[in-house]
Structure formats: structure tokens, C-alpha cells
């Protein structure tokens, strides 16, 4: 367990610091829109930042894996085609990221590592400073306490803040976080602040109803003992809209396409894709191994909850942010909390 430096820093001071940093790099923070919704946006002034927000519907994964991301440009005009790698991303600070989304980043970090390290992702990731915000305002759909996704974390952030009123309790998780704290007026945090934070977190825990007990579903899916009838039922309920995957902090699937801007020039890009779309596995011949939506729903939960994936990733593919509950069009039947409940209650085949 790393020893985490804890400091008390003034809110006003940190906000001023973020404002001045926004002259040098992109600072993204929760901003209240004119319609009242809060979303993560680039800011130029500290006045734009709000701390009164329930998490945004769209996870901040888009700042690490953009919806649309050029891989390279090509120019076919010369004697030889010219391929030019996309320019390296510029540094960014993500301020106010909730714990669940920090866990989502860590999931992405793991996935984009390995034998084929995704250099494009890591260029962006290494240029990113994550200032997370321990959660005091869970939505009524939140279940991070079921998934080790919050409301606060012991690592994974560059700097973790807890809102103590006039002051932030600031926990340093990396040298990038330390660099920010070092430029702020600060004093050491002690047991008193730690107890204050514990009380706040306790209150947050109590606001959440632990709706998603994953364990039984993990066992049933791993052993392929979920009743096929339940997948069929869920397949009929699913609209294949892909909403659950787009708002999921752990979903990373992408499509790769070429786009011509002129007859001779253009780019290859990747963009978000969804395993819930019928075309996701359709081959050129027309053969489609997951043509039916029951197969696609099954695929989604296999990826999130099977032991093989949990073993590879170190954790289930869910951080308990509850966004799939908000976004699912299927009347509350196909989000993570609903599905694990259905598998637990009615979906298991009797052991032979």
C-alpha cells in the first residue's frame, strides 16, 4: 500500500491554479450548461466550474478514447503514397472525475496494455492528469459500492479531492498530482480531516442501495449455467441501440474506417462501436455469428462478468456508475443491476 501524502488546500486557490493552467493546457471540468445539465467541458475560467453535480451521463472516457480519432492521414497524390501518423495529443487535466470513472480509466489502461500496447491511447493517457473527486452526491442509480468503484479510492488518481467545505482534502497519487499540490498553499491533513472524510463517505454509502450483487451472476455466466431462455427473453427486450456500451466506462470497442477528403487525400480513423449492433460481427459474405440480439446481450455480459475476463482484467467490467440503468430503453430490464438480479433469481439452470 503506497503512503499517500494528504494535504489541505484552499478551494479558491486550487481553482485559480486550474484557471492559470488552462492557459497552457486543456483543463476539463464539470460545467453547468444553460439547460441545467452538468457536463465535462474545457474551461477558461474558474467561474465555470461547478462542484454541485451528480455524475454526467456521458463518461469521461471520451477524453482518453475520443469518439472519433484519426490513426493516420494519407496522400496518394505523389509517386509513392505518403502516410502520416496523427499528431501527438496535447496535455490535458481532467478535474472532478468521479471515483467510478477513475476505475473505468484503470480498466482502459489494462485493456490498452499487454503484448500489443495501444500507443495511440497511451500517448493521450500519459499526457493526462486526473484530479478525481470523492463522491458525495451519488445518483439513485449508483452502485459503485458493489463494484469496488467508489465512492472514494485508495489509488488510480493523480490527485484525489474530498470537498470539506472551504477546503479540499487532497491526496497525492502520482508525481503529476504532487506537482499541482506543490503550487498551492497547503497544510498537512491530520486525523481530524480523515475522520471528517470517513463520515462524509459513510453518509454517501448510506445513500446508495446495493442493488447489484455480481457474484452469483459471475458464477452462472462463467459456468455457462444461465438458462438459455433468459438470454432469449432479454434478446427480445433489447432494442440493440448500443446505449449501454456507449455510456459504459469499461466499454472500448471501436470500428476502423477510411475517409477520403479529396480524391487523393484522406484519413483512417477509429470511432466507437458497439457489440450490441447487429453489424458488429457481420462478415463480408453476409455470415453473421451474432445475428440475433440474444447472442449480443449474452456477449456483453460474458465480457463484463465471466471469470476468464475478470482474471485477465483483475476485476469485473463494471464500476457501478449506473449509467446503463439511466440509458437503457428496455424499461429497466437490461442494465447491469437488473440482469444480475434476473440471473440470480430466475436465470440459473439446475445443476445436473
Amino acid at each position, binding site marked *: 500500500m503506497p503512503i499517500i501524502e494528504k494535504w489541505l488546500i484552499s478551494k479558491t486557490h486550487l481553482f485559480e491554479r486550474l484557471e492559470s493552467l488552462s492557459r497552457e493546457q486543456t483543463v476539463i471540468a464539470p460545467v453547468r450548461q444553460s439547460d441545467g445539465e452538468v457536463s465535462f467541458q474545457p474551461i477558461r475560467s474558474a467561474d465555470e466550474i461547478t462542484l454541485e453535480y451528480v455524475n454526467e451521463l456521458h463518461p469521461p472516457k471520451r477524453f482518453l478514447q475520443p469518439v472519433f480519432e484519426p490513426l493516420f492521414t494519407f496522400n496518394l497524390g505523389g509517386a509513392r503514397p505518403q502516410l502520416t501518423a496523427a499528431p501527438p495529443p496535447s496535455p490535458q487535466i481532467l478535474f472532478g472525475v468521479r471515483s467510478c470513472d477513475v476505475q473505468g480509466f484503470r480498466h482502459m489502461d489494462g485493456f490498452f496494455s499487454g503484448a500489443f500496447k495501444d500507443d495511440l491511447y497511451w500517448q493521450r493517457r500519459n499526457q493526462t492528469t486526473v484530479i478525481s473527486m470523492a463522491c458525495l452526491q451519488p445518483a439513485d442509480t449508483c452502485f459503485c459500492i458493489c463494484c469496488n468503484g467508489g465512492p472514494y479510492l485508495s489509488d488510480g488518481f493523480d490527485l484525489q479531492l474530498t470537498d470539506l467545505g472551504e477546503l479540499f482534502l487532497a491526496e497525492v497519487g502520482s508525481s503529476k498530482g504532487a506537482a499541482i499540490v506543490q503550487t498551492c498553499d497547503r497544510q498537512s491533513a491530520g486525523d481530524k480531516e480523515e475522520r471528517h472524510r470517513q463520515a462524509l463517505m459513510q453518509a454517501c454509502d448510506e445513500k446508495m442501495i446495493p442493488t447489484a450483487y455480481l457474484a452469483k451472476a459471475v458464477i452462472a455466466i462463467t459456468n455457462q449455467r444461465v438458462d438459455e431462455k433468459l438470454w432469449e427473453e432479454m434478446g427480445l427486450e433489447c432494442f440493440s441501440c448500443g446505449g449501454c456500451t456507449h455510456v459504459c466506462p469499461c466499454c472500448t*470497442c471501436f470500428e476502423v474506417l477510411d475517409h477520403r477528403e479529396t480524391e487523393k487525400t484522406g484519413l483512417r480513423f477509429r470511432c466507437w462501436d458497439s457489440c450490441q449492433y447487429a453489424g458488429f460481427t457481420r462478415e463480408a459474405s453476409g455470415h453473421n455469428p451474432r445475428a440475433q440480439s440474444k447472442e449480443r446481450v449474452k456477449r456483453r455480459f*460474458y465480457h463484463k462478468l465471466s471469470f476468464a475476463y475478470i482474471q485477465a482484467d483483475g476485476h469485473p467490467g463494471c464500476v457501478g456508475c449506473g449509467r446503463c440503468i439511466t440509458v437503457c430503453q428496455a424499461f429497466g430490464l437490461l442494465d447491469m443491476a437488473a440482469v444480475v438480479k434476473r440471473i440470480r433469481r430466475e436465470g440459473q439452470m439446475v445443476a445436473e
Partner: protein
Amino acid sequence: MQKLYLPQLAVIDQIVDETADTKTFTMHFDNPHYNAEFRYLSGQFVEASVLGVGEAPFGFCSNPNRTGTFAVTVRAIGRVTRAMHAMHPGDLLGIRAPLGNHFPLQEVQGYDILFVAGGIGLPPLRSLIEPMLDMREKFGRFTILYGARTPADRVYKTRLEEWAQRKDLTLLQTVDVPDETWNGPVGVVTTLFERTHIDPAATVAFTCGPPVMIRFVIQDLLAMGFPEDHIISTLERYMKCGVGKCGHCAIGHKYICVDGPVFSWRQIKKLPER
């Protein structure tokens, strides 16, 4: 730099018409140093780009022992493959390779070898047949069974004739629909099993072809008594990145592009969907 998704340019040396809709492209990398260093193994694949159109995966069909050039056999069926078919020698493709795992070659020495191929399933197996024939003495009985829709749908017709002349291997061919040129067997490829002598305990079988053919071949091999890990096949899926990231080719927790495309029946049968 983003090497993972950035292709290398390759020059097409030769395009051979195999069937009405299938061509073999032989090529080499434009960068001489890269080309000299380039190595691959039987069973691996390339991601080939027609810049501005897109990228698609193809198994090597060439002999990995013959360095300097490599080849893929491509059926015109989608956007990228049609664009490839419109290309000419001297044209440039983008290539990312080698990708994926490979066929066991050293591990199967001493065994009888059986190949069961259907239609355009022969190309990836050819990249294994030829290096095996380079060291023919390391293997026991050597049998190739090849089935196609019609005689004209067979790929590598010249090579098939060469193989048919060889005394150290048995090549049996069958077609679903014969024509006036055909005096060989008629029927699906599995009907050839009874025309050949196979000792399941001493044989390793490699099969590649349409999914339905593979299913029946594996069923018959198991019925003959083949051990599960002596049946080697390749799995195919719609594929984009080729490096286990885009998610399209996942079956269970395996990514066909990095954990495959070569799997034994023992591995395949454990997958939750197949």
C-alpha cells in the same frame, strides 16, 4: 510513433487469377531493409489496406521459408477485396504483418499429416503444406483432401497437379458439381475419408474451409477417434485492428486475431460460442 495501426507499403509483384472471383497477390515491402528482415510463420495473417477504401485480414498462403516475397489469396466479396481485385502489378498496398498465432510445425514432426480443405480454405493450409514438404522426411504418411464447389472453383490448379504427381503424398480431390472436365470423385470433402487410410492415433489433422464444412469434418474426425488436440483448425471473424483491441473478433475471452486464428478442437470446444 503509432506503429500499431500504421501500415508498411508493399508493392504487388504478381496477380494470378485462381478462379472467377479469386486472385493470388504476391508482393514485397517497398522498404528494402524492412523486406529483408521480414519473417512470418504458417497460419499467421496480414491486414491489407487499399488506402482510402479500408483494411481487411488475409492468411498468408505462401511458404514462409521463401523470404523476400509473400502472398495472399483473396476472394472478391466485400469493399476492400473488390478494390484489391481492381489493382495491377506495381500498385501499392498497405500491410501490417505478421499478425496472429501460427500452426504447430515442429510439434507435429513424426506424425502422419492429414489436410482437409474446402474451397478457399486451402490458401492458409498451403502456407503449412509447403514448408512441411521442404522437410518431408520428418513426417509419416502425408494426405491432402480438397473439396470445391466445381472444378473451376479450385484454387492453385497448377500446384494441385504438381502435388498429384508426387509419390510421397496422397492428394484426393472432390467437387460438389462436376463438369465435363471432371472424372474424379463427386460429393462433399468428408466423402473422401473412406477412400484413404488414416490412423487416427498417429495423425494430426489440419482443416480449413467454410464453417459448415469444418463442423462436419471435425465431427467425422472425432468419430474416427482423433484426439481433440490432434484436430487443428482456424477460426474466422469480422476483424478490424488485428491486435486484440477493437473487439470485433472476440469469441468468449479469446481474440481470434491474437489468440488465434489457429486453434485445436480441444480449445475450440471450450469456447462459449463457436
